[in-house]
């Protein structure tokens, strides 16, 4: 097939009728024009047109839609707001998209037991806003927290800057009501601890929609810190800054957040937002400390001493909340700033042991030079969670090819350093081909066995998370699932 040809909708008419019957015809989009906007998520490199987009409002409707798809042996996929960065919400093989954005109610906030019950379409930040009166918040805070849904956070086990101290999504989910790929509705875990049996909630989080669709989520709420101190430590080079990171962690200090921003990002942000970041810096560390008011100054002193020891030129301490938000703005708007200076960019998500940061950043620099590509770094340094951003021009086939090759080499370097392919974005479609670098066939086969317990027909977000087979060479081959139904967006 012509890889760049627009795909046609191949949804069987009988299934379309069944979907319309399940949720009402006005709640079903079908046809190329209506569904085109759903052809990818935040990972735009690969696209596929959904067979239909179905807007649901409760678990019963989802169950009916899933049963209709299963009866037709047709794939389906849940979607929130589509902010994912690994292709996890991309409708491979023209799957039916079950759109959860309308299931956006916060059902309960229980301050005494520090949990909330939400529908999957609730925007992450809205839960924290709703809890403000109780001095509680939902700790996972992806950069997209103003737009991403908690259902999506559960599917991908999302992180964020403050997961360094507070943990990722899985550490904050205590129960899930889900529609299984059979259409059955089950409840896993719940507000009371000690649920008997295996921790199916823990297993479900991060399963990328392949074990079913969460319809109700019990979220743990975290007390707001009494005080916060935010520091911007300026370093002459990326290497010095990364040594500062390993120095802080090595000293047994776990800040609430510890982010590294390199000079490319500083310039892009400064030229756009004029926040007063130092343009002569090689890199800066955005360090946030929180806790009781008492003792926070002493901790900040310790952090500054470690930074100075590693060549820090100066430290700016946010004097009030307005300045704190300004410093964070640079971090949160980094991707937007890059978008202004380069037509296309590719964000990675590998994680390495924190002691390997200086070596890894040097390696990324070398690879950028090898392919004559600019690679920027803005990432969760305290966790060792890299986000190298490879800049390229999608209209230049050579650059697209080089960007993919550079990405591949970075992935391999991550694994060689004892790291993981993804820290918070998920494997999705994007990193599927690299899974055999991390796990052997026995490991993957074990994962597939568990997947088949939930979804023996492999209709729930097929072709994601875990490769369906591994007998293919990694390098130079497309993942097998790409052979059908997908076009390369910019290839």
């Amino acid at each position, binding site marked *: 097939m012509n890889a760049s040809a627009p795909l046609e909708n191949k949804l069987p008419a009988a299934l379309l009728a069944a979907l319309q019957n399940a949720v009402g015809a006005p709640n079903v989009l079908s046809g190329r024009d209506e569904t085109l906007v759903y052809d990818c998520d935040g990972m735009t490199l690969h696209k596929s047109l959904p067979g239909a987009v179905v807007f649901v409002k409760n678990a019963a409707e989802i169950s009916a839609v899933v049963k209709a798809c299963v009866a037709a042996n047709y794939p389906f996929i849940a979607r929130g707001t589509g902010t994912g960065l690994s292709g996890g919400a991309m409708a491979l093989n023209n799957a039916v998209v079950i759109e959860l954005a309308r299931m956006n109610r916060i059902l309960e906030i229980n301050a*005494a*037991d*520090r949990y909330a019950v939400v529908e999957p379409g609730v925007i992450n930040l809205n839960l924290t806003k709703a809890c403000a009166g109780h001095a509680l918040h939902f700790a996972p805070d992806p950069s997209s927290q103003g737009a991403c849904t908690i259902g999506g956070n559960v599917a*991908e*086990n999302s992180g964020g800057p403050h*997961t360094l101290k507070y*943990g*990722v999504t*899985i*550490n904050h989910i205590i129960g899930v009501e889900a529609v*299984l790929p059979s259409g*059955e509705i*089950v*409840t896993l875990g719940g507000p*009371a*601890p000690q*649920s008997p*049996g*295996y*921790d199916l909630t*823990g*297993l479900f*989080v991060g*399963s990328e929609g392949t074990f079913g669709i969460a319809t109700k989520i019990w979220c743990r709420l975290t007390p*707001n810190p*009494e005080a916060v101190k935010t520091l911007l430590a300026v370093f002459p080079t990326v290497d010095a800054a990364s040594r500062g990171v390993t120095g802080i*962690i*090595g000293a*047994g*200090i*776990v800040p609430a957040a510890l982010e590294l921003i390199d000079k490319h990002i500083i310039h892009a942000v400064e030229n756009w937002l004029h926040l007063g970041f130092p343009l002569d810096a090689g890199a800066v560390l955005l360090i946030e400390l929180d*806790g*009781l*008011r*008492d*003792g926070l100054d*002493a*901790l900040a002193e310790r952090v500054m001493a470690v930074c100075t020891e590693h060549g820090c030129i100066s430290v700016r301490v946010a004097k009030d909340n307005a300045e704190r938000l300004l410093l964070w703005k640079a971090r949160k708007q980094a991707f937007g700033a890059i978008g202004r200076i380069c037509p296309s960019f590719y964000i990675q998500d590998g*994680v*390495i*042991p*924190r002691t390997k940061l200086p070596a890894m950043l040097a390696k990324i620099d070398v690879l950028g030079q090898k392919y004559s590509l600019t690679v920027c770094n803005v990432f*969760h340094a305290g*966790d*060792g*969670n890299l986000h190298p951003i490879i800049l390229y021009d999608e209209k230049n086939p050579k650059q697209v090819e080089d960007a993919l090759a550079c990405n591949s080499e970075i992935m391999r370097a991550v694994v060689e350093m*004892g*790291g*993981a392919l993804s820290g918070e974005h998920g*494997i999705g479609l994007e990193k599927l081909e690299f899974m055999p670098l*991390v*796990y052997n066939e*026995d*490991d993957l086969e*074990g*994962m597939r*066995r*568990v997947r088949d*317990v939930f979804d023996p027909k492999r209709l729930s977000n097929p072709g994601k*998370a875990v490769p369906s087979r591994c007998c293919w060479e990694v390098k130079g081959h497309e993942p097998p699932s790409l052979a059908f139904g997908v076009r390369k967006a910019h290839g």
Partner: protein
Amino acid sequence: MGDWVQQFKSQFGDAVCTDDVVRCAHSDQDIVPVCVCIPESEAQAAAMICFAEAHKIPVVPCGSGVSEGSCAPPPSEFLALSTKRLNKLIHHEPGDMVATVQAGMPFHQFSDSIATKGQWLPVDAPPEATIGGIVAQNTHGPRSLGYGTLRDMILGMTVINGDGVIRKCGGKVVKNVTGYALDKLYIGSFGTLGLISEVTFKLRPLPVDGIFYDVFFATTNESISAMHAIAAKNLPLEILQVFKYSRSDPRFFLRVAATGTPAELARIIEDLRQSVPENEFSTSSKTDVEERRSNGASVADISWTNGIFAYRGRQSLPFLNGATLHIGYVSSKLDSALKIVERYIDGYRSIGMTEAVIDIDPLSEVEAARIASEFEKLGVNFAFENIVGVNIPNRWGTPRPEWAIMKQIKAALDPQGIMNPGRFVV
């Protein structure tokens, strides 16, 4: 006993022991294994499980045996698979605050090893327990208020499943969404899916300065009110738990523990005094971690005795004389839950799991059925443990719909059903 034992011995030699003393030492709830296998490598353990699978012999993984009785009795004929020789610290990188350890290492050894680099694993577990045992049982205690449970501390795992295949999941970095989180599945699975052979933990800096704030109360209600008043302060506490003073003394004892800098601790004490004024029985003191360490005590032992057994001193291993009941509830149900087991209650918390000791010896089947029935009506999770010799049809309550999924997962990873069969919910 089948011919398999001779075959087994000829295949694995000295790693298989049929000596009566050794077998009896590995008995579980008075049931003695046919033989005790002590593999010296992961590969040998895998070969043993393959053999057991081929001959459909039930396998009971065992560590140090401190938690015997925590699940249903083993089958009448079984093979004990000991992790005793799989006891190495594989990797500890202090700069990453990550360590990988084999399952058979005792918790106190592991704790002391990582403590030399100023780090610890903040779990309340018996010092003698093995890493594998702690993980298989999802052991945790009052400190989970401050640090969470093992789910929040485990980064990866290697397991030999019931089909004899060695599989790893997770990794050695602190954030990881690469593949399914099967490690979460194995935590608390009581060895029913496979033998845990290696675990990677996210560690914490070892606290050097800490405090206790202890208050005694005459009644349950007073202690509950005090606990809620402190919880509402949202202080960074490690422990907030009420214990019965002793089995013969009906008073309740509220223990609060926190760690931090001197400035933080002074502030916490001040807030505690405001929420729950000191009475004639209250005390506040510095934790004695450094002092006891300098006297040669194990970090695990200090942590254990300062937490769970703070009020009784180190007596014996827990709950050996009575059945144990673990209860999980939301705080709005605490009063009702306590009434059901009031006369047995040993300790409880405002947030998270409570524990009650039922010290009727033996626990009657009628009483167990009453408790189970009332908890189910109330929507409280529970598990009976250490009920040797008492027939309780289901110590985790009435089967729930999601147990069907658990059964299928067990069948997927342990196709012949040889791993700890009949001992857990599946």
